[in-house]
């Protein structure tokens, strides 16, 4: 645990000492708050963070691969990964420390969005009860994105490739959980032979079940469901474990 904390502190420091993190933070805040503000802040609108949390998964999807692409790829490119491997730290602790630091960084950035609920509460009757759970859902969602991004970052030396791989895989995962996509795919699949159409439907349902987007909605609207929490824990756990396995492989390869 102590080792994890050491890695976490080092990573977190590196975030806040780098100007890129601020550029990222400002761009993220500007886009997210602009979209949510334009939808929400109007006379007769609803004092609710529905628009804010509704757009958050998509905005996170655009920004987080940029944050995670450097996590391992940069270490490999600079040759510091080998140095890291020589530290008396287990790979799992390294992975988890970095993951926690990225999530904490994002939590700090999200703190700067608290002005929006405060404004809504000042001008309407905001239901505060689901707000913390909305932020928790946002962190869980971000955690799952970060885990995926970290995994791809560990697979390649090139940050741009890591960024693209993370972006594409997250887009696919996002799309699979989005009902409109399934509806659009449905008629296309029906043109296949019945067997393959059935296989495609089952696969789509399975993939739909994998998408983090599907589990975000209920927590964000204030319903805490053990299924969603278990899902996020499993999703993050899987990608972090895969990440650790990849790094193990690299250590053994020397």
């Amino acid at each position, binding site marked *: 645990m102590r080792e994890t904390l050491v890695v976490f502190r080092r990573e977190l420091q590196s975030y*806040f*000492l780098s100007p890129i*993190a*601020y550029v990222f*933070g*400002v761009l993220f*805040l*500007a886009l997210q*708050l602009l979209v949510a*503000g334009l939808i*929400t*802040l*109007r*006379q*007769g*609108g*609803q*004092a*609710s963070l529905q628009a804010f949390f509704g757009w958050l998964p998509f905005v996170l999807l655009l920004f987080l691969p940029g944050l995670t692409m450097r996590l391992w790829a940069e270490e490999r490119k600079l040759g510091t990964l080998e140095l890291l491997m020589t530290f008396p730290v287990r790979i799992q602790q390294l992975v988890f420390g970095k993951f926690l630091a990225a999530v904490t960084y994002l939590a700090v*950035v999200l703190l*700067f*969005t608290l*002005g*929006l609920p405060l*404004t*809504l509460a000042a*001008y*309407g*009757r*905001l*239901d505060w*009860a*689901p707000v913390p*759970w909305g932020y928790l859902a946002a962190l869980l969602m971000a955690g799952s994105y970060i885990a995926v991004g970290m995994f791809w970052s560990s697979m390649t030396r090139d940050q741009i490739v890591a960024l693209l791989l993370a972006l594409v895989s997250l887009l696919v995962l996002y799309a699979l959980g989005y*009902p*409109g996509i*399934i*509806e659009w795919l*449905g*008629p*296309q699949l029906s043109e296949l032979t019945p067997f393959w159409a059935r296989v495609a439907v089952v696969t*789509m*349902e399975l993939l739909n079940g994998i998408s983090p987007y599907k589990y975000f909605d*209920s927590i964000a*609207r*204030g*319903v805490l*469901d*053990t*299924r969603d*929490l*278990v*899902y996020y824990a*499993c*999703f993050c*756990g*899987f990608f972090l*474990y*895969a990440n650790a*396995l990849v790094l193990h492989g690299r250590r053994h390869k020397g």
Partner: protein
Amino acid sequence: MHTTTRRVDPAASQASGQRGSALQLTIHLVLLVLVLGQLVYLASRLRLRADLTSDRLWSLTQSTRDILARLDQRLLIEAYFSPKDKLPTQLRESRVVLDNFLDELVQLGKGKVVVQRFDPLADKAVADKCTRLGVKPIDMQTGTSSSISVDRHWQGLRLVYGGGKQKVLDQVGPQNSFLAEAILTPAIKEVATAQKRKFGFMEWPVQAAPGGQQAPSGIGWNLLRTHDAIAKRYEFQNFKDEEGALLPDDVDTLFLFRPKELTDRQKYVVDQFLMGGGTVVLFADAAEYQIGPRRSFTKVPFQLDAKDSQYKFLDQLQHYGIEWKPRILADLRMEAMRSNQPQEYFGVPQRTPWGQTVGQVFYPYFFHAVGGDWSKLADELATRNGHRDEDLAERYRRFRPGIDSEEFLFQAFKKIGRGPGFYWPTWVDLRRKPGAPDAVDLPVGITGKVMLWSSPEVLTEEPPQSLDPIGQGDGMAQTQQLTQFRNKLLERLSSEPRQQAPLMVEVQGEFPSFFAGKERPKRPAEIKEEEAKKAAAAAKAAADDGKPDEGKPDPNQPPAADPLAKTDPVGPPAPKTEDEADAAAQPVAPEAPQRERAVKPGRILAIGDADFVRDDLVRQDYAQSGGPVSVNGGGFFSMLLDWLAQDRELVELQSRVPTDRTLTLVQPSTATRQDPRVEEQKLRTTTQLLLAANIVLPCLLLIAFGFLVFLWRNAQKRAFLHSVQAD
């Protein structure tokens, strides 16, 4: 011994090692996916869920739980659903809601609720059964890159209770759990309840406006009464029959919808109904207005009492403790006539850069009770030109809250801070002592309360012949006309003391009969019988007297009293038909003896408006042109029925509205004289400021935070360099 030494190729060995580790990695990950997949599956089967919203937006109410707990037989719910993956988005959302709702029903039903799912698309026999039962398919058009097709979807339910009573919901598509519950729980209650509650009503036809016009349509109240959501729970029977029969015992509530031309007999029927412990609900209107093109309102004339009526209905109501002043009310307080849904009141379509919108028009004859406590405004209202009139302020401190009742009927309205919208309402109050407006003077044993009040800025007036606030001219002319209309009312307001108008009252107890000590008004058949007897007696007397010439009338004899007896002043009386002869021969059945005092406590509920339930407003006939539209009228009426039936569960379901979370960036001006453009400008500025503050401020804060970190880091570096240099 010959030994051979195999040389191992390092490259091949490395490749093999890589393959091995890749395989190992893959196996690891596949196993992990399987384990985690199982875990997620188990978690989704054994779910624990907590609804953390303060309105419990995503949970079933106690009402549904109570209804389920009372089921003593099995409730079978047959769900005729086509597969989820074939549904379009809008139905897919509702399917999720429905599935969740049905799952919760099964869970809460504790074995008494069984859900069976059928797929009509997979089995033709099931589809045929759907058609037989009345479950309707939903045909929706879908398109691919190469074709357009119409797909058939099914989403209907059949509820069977105890193998007997059943109910079919042909198409169900609730967009949220709220609506799912509002649709399904009453249906469950309907099948699980023995019989429908019966209500009686009396309504009077609308007459034509002067000038030879046709009688206006849409002023009746058929639409709500026959609406499926109400008709499935309650049965309405018209008792305004020409025979003037007393109401049967199985009716305990009688609605008087905009009473007019009331005969004494009808008043007697109402009185005797009250004496028997009935509940009378009066929808009172001081005037009937026909809505013409471009919102011109023309009064359709009517009299409250029939021409030959001996007793006045207003006196009868006063006898029971209700004082109805048949004048119309105008509430000039902006909160009372402003609505989040402008069409609920009165608007004029306007073209804006964002498209066509409806701008609300000052029209104080359409308003609602405001939820707040008006006594808090006493000092403000009693202050004129900077001077406060203490006597007036003291009087105004006795003002009542707009919704002055704790009844569960008003639960939802209290939540949204406003009562139902009324249209040209009238003053209905408790009987008060003459000269003492604060002293209620109810008959002995009667209790009463005012449930809804207007704001203290109300005016009363005789219903004008025509109300045309915006006129028929162009935009400029309309604005001028509206300004004149407004100024006229404001001048009146400033010259009169403030008062609140009561809009809805309830009195209950053992009422004294209005007809006690009076002659009982006879039924038309009785009158006819009497007249026939008189005519017969006269004829007999004439015969006994021995007329010299039967073919000619005696010039000294008055004409026959019976108008129905077709007498010919010149010729002999027309011979009676067989039916008439039978009718005259059959004596009219005697009716129950007159009750001079109540045998059971009764109740009168008087609402100072009948227009909120009128068909054209409920049907939203004028929605496109800016209203008026009675948005809350249907809901209020439905809740009123449940409240009268003391069906708290259904009222709770219907009144389960989310807390009003509407953003008010700029408080609407309460000053009636403010130019609306000033308010618009203020709103635009505030919105832009808030938007800028919410976007720019967090970004600046983050940059400032970064700058502080940078300074701190530099200071650290400098300190380090100093220490190195010092060493």
